């Protein structure tokens, strides 16, 4: 396993553990369970990541970030973008808007601005890259 892969695992595992713990605690909140506040969970995750990164960096061989590393990174961002935008769009169009459109809620312009803004950034970046030199 190379350094980049170890670093990715080090970022992923504490994140899943922290989010899993927090969500489980939230689901049990009604049953009288206790949970750390979100801030403490985040700090715990960050501490775990920092300690892991220090250990991994000290025992692993340093390697350059090459085109394959960057390509894997971009593909990760793409999957994350598609997942978030699909869930967000679905929630907005099929749940939020039908229930709240008649009342014109205050947060609606902000939600639409986020949606349109993200799409504008994606299309703008692609339009620039169509004319620029592209490399992984």
């Amino acid at each position: 396993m190379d350094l980049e892969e170890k670093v990715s695992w080090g970022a992923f595992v504490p994140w899943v553990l922290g989010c899993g713990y927090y969500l489980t605690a939230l689901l049990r909140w009604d049953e009288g369970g206790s949970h750390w506040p979100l801030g403490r969970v985040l700090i715990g995750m960050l501490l775990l990541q920092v300690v892991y990164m220090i250990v991994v960096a000290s025992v692993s061989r340093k390697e350059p970030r090459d085109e394959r590393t960057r390509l894997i990174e971009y593909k990760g961002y793409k999957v994350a973008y598609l997942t978030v935008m699909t869930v967000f769009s679905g929630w907005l169009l099929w749940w939020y808007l039908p229930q709240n459109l008649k009342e014109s809620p205050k947060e609606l312009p902000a939600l639409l601005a986020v949606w349109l803004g993200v799409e504008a950034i994606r299309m703008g970046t692609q339009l620039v890259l169509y004319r620029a030199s592209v490399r992984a």
Partner: protein
Amino acid sequence: MTKMVIANRIRRLRFDHGEMTQQELAVKIGATRQTIIAIEAGKYAPSLELAFRIADAFGVGVNDVFQREYNGAKMPE
């Protein structure tokens, strides 16, 4: 359309060049050892730039390192 597969002779060329290790080749071309492993296994097709760097590391042409194959058969000359 027939699927094109990029085959390579990197393992053979490494052997012919004093049993060069994957790590040595990686350092020579500025890539990671994982990338060399992926290219050798046919799991990653490098960019033209990286392909030239690999060829230069062995002192041969790109055609001597990479070959295109269509459904397992080499392209007819």
